[in-house]
């Protein structure tokens, strides 16, 4: 009997030890990462398999809480207000804005001890300029930065096969672009017998005002919303509608709309509708993201590989009214992984992130999956291909810190056998890298925060006024005098208050200390 009891106790002890095999010594709870849903990566069929491999190799137990992007604000606000325990928060859904969360006490800053003890590989990997958007005016680090894979994404693109049909050259000025629009409008470029169904320009993501015209007239990348601003000559930061060329931007967009260069349903058009227009071979140029036009026209090529659809990026215009010959882009680095204030022991989460970047094999496992199964390296190890169907099984789910550095890690292979859309996008990226300039928002790194300021409780009334004025202008129902009146009203009720706060925070961050 005694021997039996001793044996049972011994087995129980062995079982307990085994049960904690995947949890690193000292880890009492799994590390929790809150990330956004993206490209359906959270529903890949082999996510669990990859997770198990990562846990086994790293010795760190973790879980990922996926939040849909369209419910991000509600979910995160409830989690923060309810003091739900989690370790990191991925800020990509917030465009890297950490300041609001930090001022509400939802985050804790990274300390030097954390970086040195738990993130040595990550710290060594990150250049100094990458920390800029992650720091406050006092130098506290609130997030780990993300390295964008391609920063010139907002370059507009054009149908080069249509240029050829119209016997026109690639436009390098606004005047030439308008000539192209007119030619598209008056010719049956798609050859379907109807000369009136083509549109010269489809702005994806509602980018008519926020796309190329924004850079052309205002010289800055912006979205024409409440957070869009510019630095005036006197050093004040003002809302975009106060710019001296704002009406020129509006009126040019309106002119294009009224001339029929743009789909007349623009104001209610979605990206899906735009893709349908592309699939119907009706669009001659697009903006919003450089490769958006490929999504619709890919269907043409799939149904008829000899259709000859070709796209190219549009070079910078040399006649910009703003004097800035550039298109819009994303910053190379953006704040991404913030630490939750409810994380009592973030070391395991940080150690796991560091483990991913401690070795190329770990990075490839977390990012692309299993070598030989989900990706196949080239002989020199600098490129990889993904077998057909591989991305349905695993893709990016556990890349807990997005860092794309193709000097350090293998880059995806793109060739003619990659498919028309992938290869065309690859060619466009190369074209852009070789000579097209794209700039991010001029103040992307400034951690503006309206909490606790006189602007905290401002409503969206000014934005509503401006938006309505823009839409009226688009359909020819607003004069310049009426626009100026609207701008003055928006400035009085909202703009000047925001401007004061922005100016103060901008100079607090940028002025020499």
């Amino acid at each position: 009997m005694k021997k039996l009891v001793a044996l049972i106790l011994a087995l129980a002890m062995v079982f307990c030890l085994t049960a904690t095999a995947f949890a690193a010594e000292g880890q009492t709870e799994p590390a929790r990462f809150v990330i956004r849903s993206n490209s359906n990566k959270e529903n890949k069929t082999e996510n669990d398999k990859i997770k198990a491999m990562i846990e086994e190799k790293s010795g760190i137990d973790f879980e990922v809480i996926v939040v849909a992007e369209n419910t991000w604000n509600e979910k995160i606000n409830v989690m923060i207000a309810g003091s739900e325990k989690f370790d990191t928060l991925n800020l990509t859904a917030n465009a890297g804005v950490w300041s609001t969360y930090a001022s509400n006490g939802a985050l804790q800053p990274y300390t030097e001890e954390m970086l040195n003890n738990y993130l040595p590989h990550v710290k060594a990997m990150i250049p100094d300029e990458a920390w800029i958007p992650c720091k406050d005016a006092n130098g506290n680090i609130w997030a780990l930065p993300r390295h964008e894979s391609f920063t010139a994404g907002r370059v507009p693109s054009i149908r080069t096969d249509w240029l050829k049909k119209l016997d026109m050259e690639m436009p390098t000025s606004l005047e030439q672009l308008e000539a192209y629009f007119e030619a598209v409008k008056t010719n049956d470029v798609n050859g379907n017998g109807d000369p009136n169904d083509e549109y010269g320009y489809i702005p994806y993501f509602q980018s008519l005002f926020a796309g190329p015209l924004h850079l052309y007239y205002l010289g800055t990348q912006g979205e024409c919303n409440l957070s869009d601003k510019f630095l005036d000559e006197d050093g004040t930061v003002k809302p975009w509608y106060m710019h001296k060329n704002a009406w020129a931007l509006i009126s040019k967009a309106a002119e294009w709309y009224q001339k029929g260069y743009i789909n007349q349903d623009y104001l209610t058009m979605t990206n899906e509708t735009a893709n349908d227009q592309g699939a119907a071979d009706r669009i001659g140029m697009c903006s919003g993201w450089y490769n958006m036009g490929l999504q619709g026209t890919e269907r043409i090529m799939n149904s008829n590989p000899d259709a000859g659809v070709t796209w190219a990026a549009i070079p910078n215009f040399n006649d910009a009214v703003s004097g800035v010959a550039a298109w819009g882009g994303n910053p190379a680095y953006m704040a991404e992984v913030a630490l939750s204030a409810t994380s009592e022991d973030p070391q395991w989460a940080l150690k796991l992130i560091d483990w991913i970047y401690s070795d190329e094999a770990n990075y490839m496992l977390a990012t692309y999956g299993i070598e030989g199964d989900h990706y196949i390296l080239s002989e020199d190890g600098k490129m990889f291909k993904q077998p057909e169907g591989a991305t349905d099984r695993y893709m990016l789910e556990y890349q807990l810190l997005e860092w794309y550095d193709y000097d350090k890690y293998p880059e995806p292979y793109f060739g003619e056998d990659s498919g028309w859309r992938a290869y065309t996008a690859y060619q466009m990226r190369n074209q852009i890298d070789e000579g097209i300039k794209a700039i991010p928002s001029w103040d992307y790194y400034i951690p503006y925060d309206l909490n606790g300021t006189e602007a905290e409780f401002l409503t969206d009334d000014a934005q509503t006024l401006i938006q309505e004025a823009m839409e009226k202008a688009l359909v020819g129902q607003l004069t310049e005098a009426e626009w100026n009146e609207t701008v003055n009203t928006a400035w009085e009720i909202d703009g000047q208050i925001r401007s004061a706060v922005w100016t103060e925070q901008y100079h607090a961050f940028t002025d020499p200390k």
Partner: protein
Amino acid sequence: MGCSEEGIMMKVKKNRTLNSPGEHIFLFLNDLILILLCIVMIYPVLFVLARSVTPELERALHPLRIFPSSFDFTGYVFIFSSGSNIVNSYRTTILRTLIGTAVNMALTLLLAYPLSKKYYRPRKVLTGLIVFTMWFSGGLIPSFLLNKSLGLLNSFWVYIFPCAVNPFNLMIMRNFFQQIPDSLDESAKLDGANDLRVFWSIYLPLSTASIATLTLFYAVFHWNMWFDSMLYMNRKEMWTMQYTLRQLIDSATVTDIATVGTAMDNIPPAETVRMATVVVATVPILCIYPFLQKYFVKGMLVGSVKG
């Protein structure tokens, strides 16, 4: 005088069998309007069904066509192959609907019965408290904190307990019970029945129409709910089907355009996914509804008409 009773009957009979031209026109217009209404109601359903199986190119070229020339099931393949989570979600939703509806009905009936009794002293206070919750609630954050403190986060029971009784449905049931004559109650008690026996043997059999109606209300409620899944459930395998489908639509709509040429592959058009989602979400309810329809029609006015 020529207006004998027989004559009147003959005239009435003639009026019933021989329609005047005016009646013909009325009947024709009536039928026409009803047919148009049917088309207006059926067309969107057919449109959704058609769009879910129409190839994208054909959809772009012929946006209003409802009979596709070929079929493309990419949207359905995407939904049902997405990491098999749709299977988990279906299971969760079906369990939630069955268990939740049963709990809802049991508690609603058990609460409605005493509230319908005039001799139950606390009924006015209780009714007032219940009605108060119809107009005012604690809000999102307090509800979250409450459910969290009850240990319901990431638990299946968060789908059941917080919405165990719907005040509106409770009032409907209570009003229906109040319509049942007290004499039935009294005569049963004279025969020795207690309240529970009266409830079980008399009130429930007489209330089948309203019970079926409220069962449908609760079942549809549980079937359609996604918000509580979003708020309280971090475990993907426990998401309800509506939330999973919503997230699939979100994924199809927002591709990661930054990870160029890699993650942007293999996602069907958002429109196709959206339409397929609507079909997947509504077909089960459409299959059940015809069986409960007669009760639904009969019970629509239950609790709202006195006398």
